[in-house]
């Protein structure tokens, strides 16, 4: 042996292998282990799926009661035929894992504050936020309740879990999903807790905005004073077209919430500086989280049978939140969009009826200010005595770093999310407990389980009566001809403005005085006008006996647009409904543009501004792909808003909530000269709406000219809609999609948000259904099925959904592959 050369060579080899086997830091992110990642037998190359992959398979397992056949159609949608319900959920779990395992892992990691475990201290602030918000706590409540009292749901979730784990168990490490390799970690076993955590995340996504909004509204109120606040953030919407038509008579409320006698001074008008959370938190749930759904009765359709439509508006991500599936067992046959992470179909139809959901937007999350006795935070003041706190310990594992331990004080309100250990310099000394209906055990899984099996209106009512959080508008259409919509959830019986701001936490009179009984939740069945609809607007007019929450939680204009169109339609076909779901008419601009023109002083405008105004007035009011008019309108409107209330809000050192667009528009339509229009910075002059509209257009013109130079005046180029991979990596995303729509539009597609699943179901004898989501059935970026539906979705097209009995499906030309599950 030549010792020196040998040792040198060996050391060099080992060092190189070590470097290639290490994640290198590149800025804030880490590289994959390059040698591993590039190895064609271990790394990412293994995830490059053959474009003509044969998905046929035969799987033998001793975890099934009987055999199960799965047929995959040409869009890779599985049609599961099982003899036992639990077997069907086992297979659903298996397939979710087969096609979406990384996403399932990642989403539940976010929900449970476990990102740092894989990504390091960089993600700690996000993890701490979700831990302190009580995400794990809430999921634990649900799991405990289901394990104790609900054997049917327990066995359903257990079967689903076993299916996911059966896939993980047989998974060759070389075949684990791409993102695990990229981020250098491995899949872990699924548990029922993860299913509940995932559903908890949906509660956060759809009701958790209050966790940010309540603090912001409080600070805005404090900054402006309640008088001005109430003008700019009024809860009254002149043009409201509620879900339950105006004029409906509501029964006497069984709870009459009583406002504390001193609330005006001690709560509403209280303006001492309060907590503001400036710590880095995850992005608050999107303010446009919402949806459309409607059903038209046979009286309005060409066939005489109802048609139901549902399109939930959520963040647009890949892999998609949704995964299409058909589940057929002796008890039911159901098709629709499922959540990878949860059993059953969430939005879909069965052989008797169809259902869909939109978000109710009701406020079910409040903050209470807590006074602790001392720095140990072991007692807090409530109703004149010191009350004991229990501490909830949450351990956050951090990659390459020591564990971080959260000791969260638990009060009778809920977790004290903000305390001495979690806040920013501006919130020093403020402690805030959070009360949220999502912290209470929930039977959400059972609602969908029952809806999957529902045969008629009564079954639907029973199924949704179990639903607590997030509150939803459940729409229904049955083959027998019924249509209905009901807003369902555990809704707090509130007095006006209760919980809009942080409430005193030492006084029981500020507590929730009850949950509104299900029978009193807004419901309508087979109305005379021949349709039911919802688009996240307020569910009722102001005669409903309970307070719904701040108006900013209830977008106005999409609902107006849906109803306006539906009223005018007859002889409706599924194609008409597709056209309506993808409709780009801007009902807001239809009202706002003439209002702007009324106040505009054209003679004061520059030539460029005049040209922009012409572009805007010539616009056909559709937010179409190539439209320039909408871009001009949007920027003009934003500038006018800024001119009107930018001065009022500008002096604050912390970000304040922007008032809703309807507030300004309603004022313009009332033709009053509104005091807010005055620029408070000019002492010698009183500006009018005329002045501000003219100024706004002039300011907008500067931005528009810049856009014009960049060639970005066309709406889809300006809006640049994208479907983002969950890691936000552009390479794994679809960017700059040619699609119209926007805020206030039925086709509610904004930059990274919009119709995440579009479904149209015609309730004929053999159900005729259409649908798609912007993604693909495979979550693997290396699969041709990764983004299959994106272009079709952007173009406003639909797929005919295959919903057939087994013998017919086997014969169908679109059926491609067969996966057999056999008992051992």
């Amino acid at each position, binding site marked *: *042996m*030549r010792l020196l*050369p*040998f040792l040198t*060579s*060996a050391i*060099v*080899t080992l060092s*190189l*292998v070590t470097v*290639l*086997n290490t994640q290198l830091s590149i800025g804030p992110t880490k590289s994959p282990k*390059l*040698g*591993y990642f*590039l*190895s*064609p*037998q*271990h*790394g*990412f*190359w*293994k*995830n*490059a*799926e*053959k*474009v*003509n992959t044969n998905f046929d398979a035969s799987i033998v397992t001793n975890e099934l009661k009987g055999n199960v056949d799965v047929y995959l159609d040409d869009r890779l949608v599985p049609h599961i035929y099982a003899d036992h319900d639990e077997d069907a959920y086992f297979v659903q779990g298996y397939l979710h894992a087969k096609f979406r395992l990384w996403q399932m892992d990642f989403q539940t990691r976010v929900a449970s504050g476990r990102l740092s475990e894989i990504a390091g201290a960089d993600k700690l602030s996000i993890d701490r936020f979700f831990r302190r918000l009580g995400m794990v706590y809430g999921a634990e409540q649900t799991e405990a309740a289901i394990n104790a009292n609900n054997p049917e749901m327990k066995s359903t979730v257990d079967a689903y879990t076993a299916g996911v784990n059966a896939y993980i168990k047989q998974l*060759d*490490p*070389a*075949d684990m999903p*791409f993102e695990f390799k*990229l981020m250098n970690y491995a899949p872990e076993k699924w548990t029922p807790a993860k299913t509940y955590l995932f559903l908890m995340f949906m509660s956060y996504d759809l009701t958790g905005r209050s966790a940010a909004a309540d603090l912001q509204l409080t600070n805005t109120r404090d900054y402006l004073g309640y008088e001005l606040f109430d003008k700019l953030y009024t809860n009254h919407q002149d043009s409201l077209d509620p879900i339950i038509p105006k004029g409906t008579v509501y029964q006497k409320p069984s709870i009459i919430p009583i406002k504390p006698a001193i609330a005006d001074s001690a709560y509403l008008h209280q303006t001492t500086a309060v907590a503001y959370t400036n710590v880095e938190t995850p992005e608050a749930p999107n303010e446009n989280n919402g949806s459309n759904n409607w059903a038209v009765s046979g009286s309005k359709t060409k066939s005489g049978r109802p048609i139901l439509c549902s399109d939930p508006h959520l963040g647009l991500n890949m892999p998609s939140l949704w995964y299409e599936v058909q589940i057929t067992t002796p008890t039911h046959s159901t098709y629709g969009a499922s959540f990878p992470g949860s059993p059953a179909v969430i939005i879909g139809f069965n052989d008797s009826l169809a259902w869909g959901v939109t978000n109710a937007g009701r406020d079910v999350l409040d903050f209470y200010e807590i006074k602790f006795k001392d720095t140990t935070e072991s007692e807090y003041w409530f109703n004149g005595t010191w009350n004991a706190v229990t501490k909830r310990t949450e351990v956050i594992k951090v990659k390459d770093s020591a564990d971080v331990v959260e000791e969260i004080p638990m009060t009778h309100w809920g977790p004290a999310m903000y305390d001495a250990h979690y806040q920013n310099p501006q919130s020093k000394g403020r402690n805030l407990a959070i009360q949220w209906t999502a912290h209470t055990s929930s039977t959400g899984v059972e609602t969908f389980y029952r809806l999957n099996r529902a045969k008629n209106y009564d079954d639907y009512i029973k199924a949704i009566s179990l639903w607590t959080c997030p509150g939803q508008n459940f729409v229904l259409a049955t083959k027998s001809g019924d249509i209905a919509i009901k807003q369902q959830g555990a809704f707090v019986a509130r007095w006006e403005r209760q919980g809009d701001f942080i409430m005193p936490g030492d006084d029981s009179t500020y507590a929730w005085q009850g949950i509104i009984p299900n029978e009193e939740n807004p419901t309508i069945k087979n109305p005379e006008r021949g349709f039911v609809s919802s688009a996240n607007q307020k569910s009722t007019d102001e005669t409903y006996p309970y307070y719904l929450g701040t108006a900013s939680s209830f977008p106005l204009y999409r609902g107006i647009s849906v109803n306006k169109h539906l009223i005018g339609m007859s002889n409706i076909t599924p194609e008409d409904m597709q056209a309506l779901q993808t409709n780009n008419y801007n009902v807001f601009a239809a009202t706002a543009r003439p209002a702007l023109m009324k106040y505009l002083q054209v003679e004061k405008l520059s030539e460029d501004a005049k040209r922009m105004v012409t572009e805007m007035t010539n616009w056909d009011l559709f937010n179409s792909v190539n439209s320039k008019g909408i871009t001009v309108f949007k920027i003009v409107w934003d500038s006018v808003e800024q001119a009107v209330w930018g001065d009022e809000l500008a002096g604050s050192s912390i970000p304040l909530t922007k008032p809703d667009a309807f507030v300004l528009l309603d004022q313009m339509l009332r033709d009053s000269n509104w005091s807010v229009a005055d620029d408070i910075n000019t002492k010698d002059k009183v500006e009018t709406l005329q002045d501000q509209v003219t100024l706004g257009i002039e300011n907008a013109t500067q931005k528009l000219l810049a856009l014009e130079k960049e060639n970005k005046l066309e709406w889809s180029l300006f809006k640049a809609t994208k479907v983002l991979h969950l890691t936000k*990596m*552009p*390479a*794994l995303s679809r960017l700059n999609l040619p699609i119209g729509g926007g805020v206030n539009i039925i086709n509610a597609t904004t930059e990274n948000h919009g119709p995440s699943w579009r479904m149209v179901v015609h309730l004929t004898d053999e159900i005729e259904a259409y649908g798609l989501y912007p993604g693909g059935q495979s979550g693997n*970026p*290396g*699969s*041709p099925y*990764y983004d299959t539906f994106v272009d079709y979705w952007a173009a406003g097209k639909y797929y005919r959904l295959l919903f057939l009995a087994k013998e017919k499906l086997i014969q169908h030309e679109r059926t491609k592959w067969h996966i057999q599950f056999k008992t051992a």
Partner: protein
Amino acid sequence: MKNKITINIKFITTILVAALLAYAIGIYSILPWWSFVITNVIVAIAIPQKPLTSFFSGALAIGLLWACLSMIIDQSNHHILSTKVATILPLKGSYITLIIVTSIIGAIVGGLASLTGSFARKTN
């Protein structure tokens, strides 16, 4: 002349044997990606060559193996994933560059492993 031909056959045989063994051990995905380092060392000990020759035979074995495997995979994948990875890494989205990088990484490690193996032999 005769001697040179022998060396060339030996050289090529070494490449083939090393590549084959590296591929075979790579099938066991439970083993680490660098398992071919061991097989290359063994081959270099078993088939004596001059250090530099040994380096090149080891480098070519793994480099060609990784190039072939990734090319075959990439071809039947229509470059779907390689284009994305070549954007992340970043290699300007070029799948060809990515295949070359893959091959070079394998070649360098493979070559060094074989070099180490050849030094491990007693000098002849």
